[in-house]
């Protein structure tokens, strides 16, 4: 049983037991931030290393978001450039079973539609192309031989990478134009001089190589000869295997509705109408599954960074028991001590987040420029990166800050 009465007014002699409203201890938020920053500046090396952990995670997240956004923007830009107003008409399944055929005059009928700007056909020929007559019959390297309208290239806005298109030579000469992939597989390079290929047991002169056609990738793999040559030499009847048509963009949907019935009025159900742009857009969308996986990995890196902060701060709390004791003696409440250590965790994580966002942004810009893509840095990704860093920092700081706040002032003062 002890009675202490310290600093009492001299005349009262301990008579006053009344409770008063003590002035409260306060910590100005600006001072709290200053404390946190000062605490870190004193341990620069350590703070830098833990911030780097966070920065790596955030940089990964931002770069993944930025690069996939740039990639998507690139696909959309390509679509924009190529136009989305293309339709492809192909024969579907016959009702009786087996493949259907498009009537030979389908092209003419489709061209009569008001909104249709251009139509061209290809017809698949039952012949093979080989690099030379010495190769066995089976070495076709996947090249398909097509009879192509002269208007095919302009309809699809395609370009010739080397040589020229079929319309430059009179119809009866045995000339062939190769798609980009077909030329590569067959080893045809017009820069090395005129080339001949063995097509349907005859020599054909390769006069042109096309640039890749993103909206008609099946042509990349094809060897195209004129309709006249095909009819003369291989008995081509003019029944198209694919009809490409370009329509007025504002009426593309209307054209799509009537295309099947126009191509084959008697069997509209046997006609397939597709829009190649849809397939491309769908491919851009499927990238997101992969992106999600990468985002998960970036998240794991961020988590590891957070554990690093927590780890270092637990040690820091042990080392700074003396400081904690002094601050408690100077009037800091548990909340103030907790706030100080939380701010330190947040400042470290925030600095890491800012650095990570900058690094991720640079990675995105560098990659997009190298790939010749438009640069897309989603603001949501940038802001989200910093926010994610702060959330991780707060979570990482909770435990060490709680330990610091729990220290009994009498014990803490004795330490250090």
């Amino acid at each position: 049983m002890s009675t202490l009465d310290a600093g009492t007014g001299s005349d009262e002699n301990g008579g006053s037991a009344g409770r008063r409203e003590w002035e409260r201890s306060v910590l100005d938020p600006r001072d709290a931030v200053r404390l946190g920053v000062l605490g870190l500046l004193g341990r620069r090396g350590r703070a830098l290393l833990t911030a780097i952990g966070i920065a790596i995670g955030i940089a990964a997240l931002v770069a993944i978001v930025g690069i996939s956004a740039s990639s998507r923007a690139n696909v959309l830009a390509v679509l924009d450039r190529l136009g989305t107003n293309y339709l492809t008409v192909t024969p579907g399944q016959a009702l009786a079973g087996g493949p259907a055929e498009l009537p030979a005059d389908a092209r003419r009928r489709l061209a009569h539609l008001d909104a249709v700007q251009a139509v061209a056909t290809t017809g698949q020929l039952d012949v093979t192309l080989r690099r030379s007559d010495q190769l066995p019959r089976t070495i076709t390297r996947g090249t398909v031989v097509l009879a192509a309208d002269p208007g095919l290239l302009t309809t699809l806005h395609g370009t010739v990478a080397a040589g020229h298109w079929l319309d430059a030579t009179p119809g009866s000469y045995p000339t062939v134009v190769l798609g980009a992939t077909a030329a590569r597989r067959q080893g045809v390079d017009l820069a090395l001089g005129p080339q001949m290929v063995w097509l349907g047991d005859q020599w054909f002169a390769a006069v042109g190589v096309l640039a890749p056609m993103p909206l008609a990738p099946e042509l990349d793999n094809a060897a195209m000869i004129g309709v006249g040559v095909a009819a003369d030499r291989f008995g081509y009847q003019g029944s198209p295997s694919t009809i490409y048509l370009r329509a007025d963009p504002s009426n593309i949907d209307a054209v799509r509705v009537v295309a099947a019935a126009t191509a084959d009025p008697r069997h509209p159900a046997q006609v397939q109408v597709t829009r190649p742009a849809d397939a491309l857009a769908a491919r851009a969308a499927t990238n997101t599954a992969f992106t999600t996986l990468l985002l998960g990995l970036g998240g794991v890196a961020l988590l590891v960074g957070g554990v690093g902060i927590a780890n270092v701060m637990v040690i820091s709390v042990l080392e700074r028991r003396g400081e904690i004791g002094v601050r408690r003696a100077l009037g800091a409440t548990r909340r103030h001590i907790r706030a100080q250590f939380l701010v330190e965790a947040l400042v470290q994580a925030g600095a890491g987040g800012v650095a990570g966002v900058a690094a991720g942004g640079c990675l995105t810009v560098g990659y997009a420029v190298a790939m010749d893509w438009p640069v897309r840095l989603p603001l949501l990704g940038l802001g989200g990166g910093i926010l994610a860093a702060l959330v991780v920092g707060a979570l990482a700081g909770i435990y060490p800050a709680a330990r610091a706040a729990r220290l009994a002032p009498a014990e803490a003062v004795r330490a250090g």
Partner: protein
Amino acid sequence: MCALDGVTLTVRRGEWVAIVGPSGSGKSSLLNLMGALDVPTSGTVRIDGYDVAGRDDDELSALRGHTLGFVFQSFHLLSRLSAVDNVAAALLYRGIGAARRRERAAEALRRVGLGTRLRHRPAQLSGGECQRVAIARAIVGEPALVLADEPTGNLDSRTGAEIMSLFAALHADGVTLVLITHDDAVARAAERRIVLRDGRVTSPPDASPKPGR
């Protein structure tokens, strides 16, 4: 275990009391109680006239910050802060603005004779100077009571004597002081001595309060 038992002690405003005793005598427990760093299991502690019983952490912290000043044996300065910032830290939790804190801290440092060392860090100061910074930190908020725990324990005897004369000067200025020490010679500087042994006061507290206050 009972660290303190049957201790009844009143420190009056303006007094200088030394509490002396060997280690294990309960000095530290007494300091913790007087400093509101700890609360008693039984008994009453009144600081500046007000009972600490049943106060929560916020209230005890506010009490320490507003009515008490601490001087520790090992100074407990923050090594990364300058002298003036160390002293200003005592006003941080009182909600005083940064500029005003520094002003008052510089004033306090001048009062302990360190007016020319404001920007120095603890590592650049001698032990005696460090203890002066710590004393400035204890008095900057003009507390009702300054508690000094072995303030000369880490100093050589000459520097220790200088610190004691600083305490004497502060006491003359009206600062209420409680000095805790194991060194009877140091304790003799105070106007009143309490001897602690095994958690009890062995010599009765001076019965006659000094007149003229």
